[in-house]
C-alpha cells in the first residue's frame, strides 16, 4: 500500500491577494486582478497589449531590501509563498534530510537576464552583477526555498511551461510515496510582466488585446474571448506523508490523491484539438488516485481564455468523466487573476484544496455569453456549495510543448 500524501500548508501571492486568506476571499467574491500597466515601457515600446494582472502585494512589502536584491522577482514570489505555506503547516521540527522542494517556473529569471543584457550593452561587462547567474537560473526559486527552509532531500524544478506548477505537485507526491522524503514544499512562481515576454506572447496572438477594458479581458468560455491575460505571483503547498502529519497533530486540508503528467506529441504550441493528451492525463490522475468519475464534484480548469485552448479541455473532460461531467461544477479562476504561467498550476491547486476543504467552488467572472460548444456547468455569480461526504476536485494545467498535468484532491 503506497503512502498516503496529505496537504497541510498553503501559501500564495497573486494578483487578487498577497496571501491565502485574501486570495480565497476574493476568489469567492469574484474580482479582477487585471489593470492597465502604469509602466513607462508600455509606451516606450508601443506594446500591443497594455495591461496585465500584477501581484496585488509587491514582494518588497514582505521581503527585506537585501533579500530583494539577491533574488529575481520570480524567486521573490516563490519565497513569499513558501514561507506562508510553511508557517501555515505549523511544522516546528522536521528531519531536514527528509524535507524536499519541488518548485516550478515556466520562464525563470527573465527580468535578471534582460537587465544584465541591458547593463552589458550600456555599461560593459564589469558592471554585470556577480549574482546574475544564480538569479536568472530556472532552479533559482527551488534553490532559494530549499535554502530558506533547510530542505536537503533535493530541490527539484519542473519546467513544463504553464503545466509546471501542477507538475511540481506530481513530483512531490512521487517523492513521498517512494519514501525519498516525508515532507515536500511544492509550488510554482512566475514574474514575466516584462516588455519582452509581453511582446512575445502578443506576437503569437496568445494575449487578449482588450486594452480599453482590462478587467473584462480574461473571459474563459465566453464567445468573445480573445486571449489570456498575463499574471504573476506564486503558489506553494506543503505535502506531507499522512503518518507524519498525524503524528504531529497537524491540520490536514485534503489528500493529494493522484497526479499525472502526459505529453501531446502533437504540436509545439497548439493543443491537440481532440484533447487526447489531456484526456490521458485526466484518466491517469484518476487511476492513480483510485477515483471513479462519480467521485469528482469540481474541476479547476486550465481555461486560459484563448479561442483555441478552452474547447479541447472540455472535450477531454467529457472523455474522462463521461455523462457525469454534467454533475461537475467548473471554475475558471484565470478569469480573475489572469494566467500565472508556471505558477498557475500551483495557485490553482491551492484554490482546489480550499474548495474541497471549505466545500465551496470559487466563481468565474466575465462569462456573459457561454460558448455553445463548451456546455460546462460553470460557477458564475456566487460560489457553489460542494456536497458533503467524500469528494474529489481535479485541477488541470496544460503548457506549450504539449505538456499536460492533472492533480486530484480528495476530502479527508
Amino acid at each position, binding site marked *: 500500500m503506497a503512502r498516503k500524501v496529505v496537504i497541510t500548508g498553503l501559501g500564495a501571492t497573486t494578483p487578487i491577494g498577497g496571501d491565502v486568506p485574501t486570495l480565497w476571499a476574493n476568489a469567492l467574491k469574484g474580482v479582477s486582478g487585471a489593470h492597465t500597466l502604469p509602466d513607462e515601457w508600455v509606451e516606450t515600446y508601443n506594446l500591443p497589449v497594455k495591461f496585465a494582472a500584477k501581484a496585488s502585494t509587491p514582494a518588497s512589502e514582505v521581503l*527585506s*531590501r*537585501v533579500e530583494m*536584491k539577491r533574488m529575481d522577482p520570480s524567486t521573490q514570489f516563490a519565497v513569499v509563498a513558501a514561507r506562508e505555506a510553511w508557517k501555515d503547516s505549523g511544522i516546528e521540527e522536521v528531519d531536514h534530510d527528509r524535507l524536499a522542494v519541488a518548485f516550478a517556473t515556466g520562464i525563470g529569471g527573465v527580468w535578471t537576464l534582460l537587465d544584465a543584457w541591458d547593463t552589458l550593452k550600456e555599461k560593459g561587462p*564589469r558592471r554585470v*552583477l*556577480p*549574482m546574475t547567474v544564480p538569479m536568472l537560473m530556472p532552479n533559482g526559486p527551488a534553490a532559494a526555498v530549499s535554502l530558506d527552509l533547510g530542505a536537503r532531500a533535493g530541490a527539484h524544478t519542473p519546467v513544463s511551461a504553464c503545466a509546471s506548477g501542477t507538475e511540481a505537485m506530481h513530483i512531490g507526491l512521487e517523492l513521498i510515496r517512494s519514501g525519498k522524503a516525508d515532507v515536500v514544499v511544492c509550488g510554482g512562481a512566475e514574474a514575466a510582466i516584462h516588455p519582452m515576454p509581453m511582446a512575445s506572447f502578443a506576437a503569437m496572438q496568445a494575449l487578449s488585446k482588450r486594452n480599453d477594458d482590462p478587467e473584462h479581458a480574461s473571459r474563459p468560455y465566453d464567445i468573445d474571448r480573445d486571449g489570456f491575460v498575463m499574471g504573476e505571483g506564486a503558489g506553494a503547498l506543503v505535502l506531507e506523508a499522512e503518518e507524519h502529519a498525524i503524528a504531529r497533530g497537524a491540520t490536514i486540508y485534503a489528500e493529494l490523491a493522484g497526479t499525472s503528467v502526459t505529453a501531446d506529441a502533437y504540436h509545439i504550441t497548439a493543443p491537440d484539438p481532440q484533447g487526447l493528451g489531456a484526456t490521458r492525463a485526466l484518466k491517469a490522475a484518476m487511476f492513480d488516485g483510485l477515483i471513479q468519475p462519480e467521485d469528482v464534484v469540481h474541476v479547476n480548469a486550465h481555461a486560459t481564455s484563448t479561442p483555441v485552448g478552452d474547447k479541447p479541455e472540455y472535450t477531454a473532460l467529457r472523455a474522462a468523466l463521461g455523462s457525469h461531467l454534467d454533475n461537475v461544477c467548473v471554475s475558471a479562476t484565470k478569469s480573475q487573476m489572469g494566467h500565472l504561467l508556471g505558477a498557475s498550476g500551483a495557485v490553482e491547486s491551492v484554490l482546489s484544496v480550499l474548495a474541497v476543504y471549505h466545500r465551496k467552488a470559487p466563481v468565474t467572472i466575465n462569462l456573459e455569453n457561454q460558448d455553445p460548444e463548451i456546455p460546462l456547468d460553470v460557477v458564475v455569480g456566487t460560489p457553489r456549495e460542494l456536497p458533503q461526504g467524500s469528494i474529489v476536485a481535479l485541477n488541470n494545467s496544460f503548457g506549450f510543448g504539449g505538456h499536460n498535468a492533472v492533480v486530484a484532491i480528495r476530502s479527508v
Partner: protein
Amino acid sequence: MASNEEILAGLAEIVNEETGLETEAVEMDKSFTEDLDIDSISMMTIVVNAEEKFDVKIPDEEVKNLKTVADAVNFIAAAQA
C-alpha cells in the same frame, strides 16, 4: 581625492546596500569574510560598486588581497593618489 575617513564611510554604505549590515559594523580592522560574513559574490559586487563610487580600478587578482576593510580603504586611497 577622498580622505581615508571618507573612503571608509563610502565603503560602509556600499556594504550596507549589498548585505544589510549596519554601516557602523564596517570598521577598519574587520575582515570581510571572517567578521562581516561577506561571500565571494557579494565581495565582487562591493568591489565593482567601489570602483564606480571612487573612480578607481580594482583588478580581479587584487581582490583576494583585500582581506580587511583597512586593506580596501588603503588600496582605494593609493589608487586615487
